[in-house]
């Protein structure tokens, strides 16, 4: 089985050759394994979006190679085009991409570009709509008549309908209210458990990543600062804070307790877990 995405020593410069040359990402090497749920975090301007634009060849690396399914995507137009469909990229505020007369037609835009037969397109549209929780009667509406959250979900469905091997989502819940955010996270989780596909989630919220991802890649100033399981990364809470990232409240409480000498692990990131440990601690009669 080949690795879905592999980056080898990739750098990307903006305005190359001029005085304003800026390295957006520097010497990035990483692999995304089959079936993984990877979270990418970093503060604004840390190179997250530049990084994911390399996954499907929207940006060409200034240096290094990008392999999708084991093939170098810069070798030919065909491989690049195939990579576009293997890696489904959903940008921030994806509702800006809606343009068709009906929601169904808009979701079908990707599959149509893949030149799939009509019945297969119809199946995929229905499936993707189900994943994102759009009711069938909504499919005949104009996408511009939907509410903000529904638009967002319709746009995500447009990427899911391509049935990519890897689904990459850039801040899919940005600008939504807590309920909308929860819905989006729920649908990502659902999608993954039903299709078993690989998912990459970009966010600057540690809490979201912690709740969803298996592995976390932390970006800082265009470089990979940390790369490991959620537990590993969260045990460096103070480092994360110096990188301008918000550690979940509960983690901060536990780090402080740990530093004060209490016998608790510092890398707790869910309230449920925290309560369990505190209760055990109290019953154990410490303090």
């Amino acid at each position, binding site marked *: 089985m080949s690795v879905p995405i592999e980056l080898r020593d990739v750098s990307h410069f903006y305005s190359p050759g001029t005085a304003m040359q800026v390295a957006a990402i520097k010497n990035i090497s990483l692999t995304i394994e089959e079936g993984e749920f990877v979270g990418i975090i970093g503060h604004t301007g840390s190179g997250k979006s530049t990084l994911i634009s390399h996954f*499907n060849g929207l940006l060409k690396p200034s240096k290094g190679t990008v392999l999708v399914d084991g093939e170098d995507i810069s070798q030919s137009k065909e491989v690049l085009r195939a990579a576009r469909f293997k890696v489904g990229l959903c*940008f921030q505020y*994806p509702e*800006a*991409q809606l*343009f068709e007369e009906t929601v169904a037609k808009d979701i079908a835009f990707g599959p149509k570009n893949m030149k799939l037969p009509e019945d297969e397109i119809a199946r995929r549209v229905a499936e993707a709509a189900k994943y994102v929780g759009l009711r069938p009667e909504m499919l005949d509406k104009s996408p511009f008549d939907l509410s903000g959250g529904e638009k967002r979900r319709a746009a995500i469905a447009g*990427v899911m309908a391509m049935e990519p091997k890897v689904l990459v989502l850039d801040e899919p819940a940005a600008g939504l209210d807590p309920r909308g955010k929860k819905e989006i996270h729920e649908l990502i989780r659902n999608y993954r458990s039903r299709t078993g596909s690989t998912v990459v989630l970009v966010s600057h919220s540690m809490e979201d990543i912690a709740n969803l991802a298996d592995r976390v890649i932390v970006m800082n100033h265009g470089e990979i600062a940390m790369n490991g399981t959620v537990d590993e990364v969260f045990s460096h809470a103070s480092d994360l804070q110096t990188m301008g990232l918000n550690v979940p409240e509960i983690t901060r409480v536990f780090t402080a307790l740990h530093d004060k000498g209490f016998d608790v692990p510092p890398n707790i990131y869910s309230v449920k877990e925290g309560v369990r440990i505190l209760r055990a601690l109290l019953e154990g009669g410490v303090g």
Partner: protein
Amino acid sequence: MVKDITFGQYYPSKSALHNMDARMKLVLTFAMIVCIFLCHNFFSLGVMALFTVIAVIFSRVPVKMLLKSIKPVLVILIFTAVLNIFYTKGGETYFTLFNKISITEKGVNTAVFTMIRIVVLVVLSSLLTYTTTPTMLTDALERLLSPLKVFHIKVHTLAMMMTLALRFIPTLIEEIDRIMNAQKARGADLETGGLIKRAKALIPIFIPLMVSSFRRAYELAFAMTCRCYTGGDGRTRMKQMKLGYRDFIALLICLISLAGIIVLNRFFIKII
């Protein structure tokens, strides 16, 4: 990519030309462009060329930047020169081919003359945009056109619309970039196919662009209304335009050039 399109090629500096009143700059540039067409021989055109060189020196805009602005008209330049060389007849014949194609004195003169004329024209007009920000220009235009108010033309509103349009060009370019990437990620093919196919491929880009532009326009109008914007009536300015000594010196230089052109036109033979 799309971002590379430069617009309103302002070159920030603090030169004498930058500090001039935009109204005076606009009027004088216009007047001097008319002057280019008053020149009838190389001597008077020489005055214009000299004027342009002096203006460039005072603007402190690098020559490289000016060459960049000539580049787009290079084709026109060569085209008119070639046409003039072969199609204008008169005077001494330098060269004849097959008894048909010939190069004459007049042909060469006209070709060189028109070329200098076009270069001076382009350099002068780009100097204006290099030394004046688009906002300053529209402001100046508003002031200069304000007498039209007599005819119930809303000069202020027009100027405000122009300023806003200019302001939103970079924003829209960014927006196009974003939408293009989003559609490309869904497999939109913008690069291949015939004319009709390519035009069709633009639909997924322009519809979202339209939608967001309308939304932006509404939001902007709303924000302006919230800050009590009611149009030009009774509106005062933060930056008052004032004519200074620089502007009068510039005016004087222009008048001297004009006098020189008229005199030289009289004393030497007309060649164009």
